[in-house]
């Protein structure tokens, strides 16, 4: 049935399409082009080929930024994939006051990362609550300078990211847990499976898809980390700027009248390629069944052949 004139749908999607072109595709193409130039503000850009990318290998700051982001990924992914799942299991069943708990667990998510990072800064500062606690219990004599050591600073930022992300991924899992059949749980329990066994054998396979989704989201988010490290180090990137993440490096490179826009674009391009890696990995894993099937069928034929051979030998 014709409900409208032919151009109506085009008019309706036009704003969204314009926005995608002007504020996503165009800047992306521009980034790709700029990555091969030595563009700076107030100066015409010159094409320099792969020079920016060559510079990356020698640039110590880029090495540190890359390793910071990778450490972030390696620590955040397992923590933020499984802790929220356990939390979701804890708040999954309707018991009195559960709505209150769910809502408050979500508070860190909606608070601005700047605000919570400032709170974190107080808690972990030289004279902050964490140090007072450590001294109170006699674990340390002198306060630990959490925020002026590269790894400790990154550790604090990871703690902050995990604390802030728990509620978000909890909600993702909550929506998924509703689809795990309780019959399976009951059947497993009848067969004598305890809580732990049921968790690994029923719940985890049941939410396999969401686990993949969450780990990809966490991974991409961890590569893109900025605010936590920026605020905790007061914009400096820690001692000698060595706790900078890749995005912090891009931001500090590209700003100001002397900004190296071309070089910053090259780093952006590397960042983009890195965010595609987890997606590619999941793509392979999702198709791994086909691969596994192929391997398994090969093993079966091999076993059959061996069996036949053994039979023949016995005869």
């Amino acid at each position, binding site marked *: 049935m014709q409900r409208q004139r032919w151009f109506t749908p085009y008019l309706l999607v036009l704003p969204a399409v314009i926005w995608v072109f002007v504020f996503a595709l165009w800047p992306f193409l521009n980034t790709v082009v700029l990555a091969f130039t030595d563009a700076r503000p107030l100066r015409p850009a010159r094409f320099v080929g792969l020079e920016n990318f060559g510079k990356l290998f020698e640039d110590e700051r880029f090495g540190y930024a890359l390793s910071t982001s990778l450490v972030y990924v390696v620590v955040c992914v397992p923590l933020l994939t499984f802790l929220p799942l356990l939390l979701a299991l804890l708040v999954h069943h309707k018991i009195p006051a559960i709505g209150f708990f769910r809502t408050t667990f979500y508070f860190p998510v*909606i*608070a601005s990362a700047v605000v919570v990072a400032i709170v974190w800064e107080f808690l972990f500062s030289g004279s902050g609550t964490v140090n007072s606690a450590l001294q109170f219990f006699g674990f340390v004599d002198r306060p630990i300078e959490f925020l002026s050591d590269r790894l400790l600073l990154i550790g604090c930022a990871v703690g902050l990211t995990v604390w802030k992300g728990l509620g978000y991924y909890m909600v993702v899992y909550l929506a998924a847990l509703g689809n795990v059949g309780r019959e399976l749980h009951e059947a497993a329990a009848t067969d004598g499976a305890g809580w732990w066994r049921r968790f690994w054998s029923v719940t985890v396979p049941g939410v396999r898809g969401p686990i993949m989704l969450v780990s990809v989201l966490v991974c991409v988010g961890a590569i893109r980390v900025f605010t936590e490290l920026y605020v905790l180090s007061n914009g400096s990137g820690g001692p000698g700027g060595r706790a900078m993440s890749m995005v912090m490096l891009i931001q500090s490179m590209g700003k100001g009248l002397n900004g190296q826009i071309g070089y910053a674009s090259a780093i952006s391009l590397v960042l983009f390629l890195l965010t595609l890696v987890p997606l590619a990995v999941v793509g392979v894993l999702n198709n791994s069944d086909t691969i596994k099937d192929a391997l398994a069928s090969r093993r079966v034929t091999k076993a059959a052949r061996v069996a036949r051979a053994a039979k023949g030998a016995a005869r």
Partner: protein
Amino acid sequence: MSAAQAQTTTAPRREKAYRTRGSADIMKPSLPGLIGKYALLILILGIMVFPFLWQMSTSFRGATENIYDFPPSLIPAAPTIDNYANVFRAIPVLDYAWHSLLVGVGTVITNVVFATMGGYALGTIKFRGKWIVLAIIFSTLLLPAEVTLTSQYLTVKSLGLANTLWGVFLPGAIAAINVLLMTAVCRMIPPDTLDAATIDGANTMERLRHIVWPNVRGMVSVVALFAFIGAWDDFLWPLVVLSDPANYTLTVGMQYLSSNFAANPRVIAAGTMIALVPIIVLFAVLQKQFFRGVEEGSVKG
């Protein structure tokens, strides 16, 4: 057999939150299990809200009170609002809040209006080139905003919007993900309803208003809430766009306050409270709709 008996005997009674003797409902925890569960919930609650409570109590403490003691006391001995007065003296915090509010409300309005329009067209109308449009919008999901940061700034600068709130607002005005979310819920609207409205003489605007809108309100509340939170909490983009402290939004203003007045944590605590309380209150008011919308979206999408 025994399970059936237990069910028939307990049916008239009020349902208990824990597993009673003889009940075969293994999905329910036993009574000690339930108590353990609450203990764990309260422990996690403590971890989740302690930093906020501590910050709030710091913001009400006088200059002479020690804020570094352990064990920390959450109740200030002599509550004072001096710190809040000091925030107002240190930075134009009301201006910053106003800027954040403008950007947030603007983002909500444009996202809801244009994502609903686009979602309606993509979800219910067949037209030539639809799959190309969907593919273009989908592809931008793979593109993190951080990647285009530098070029985005160049775009905004060439539009003459550097160091303005318009520059902060525009790139986020229509988010691709919102268009896709609205497309997903619009697909659920029965086409017969839309046809019936057309026969009754409704034009596109009237259909959007009277048929589509009531059907997608759940998702709209999720889109609106996330758009507002995203705009209110965003830090990197305003930090890049805004160079003049007079134009800052709250988050950039808070970082400014924190790095320039580091000597007085009480004032900074008061500042963060000003940034935090409105968004927490907003969420607490809308949380029922939000959680319902999230469940709806996941079941349908």
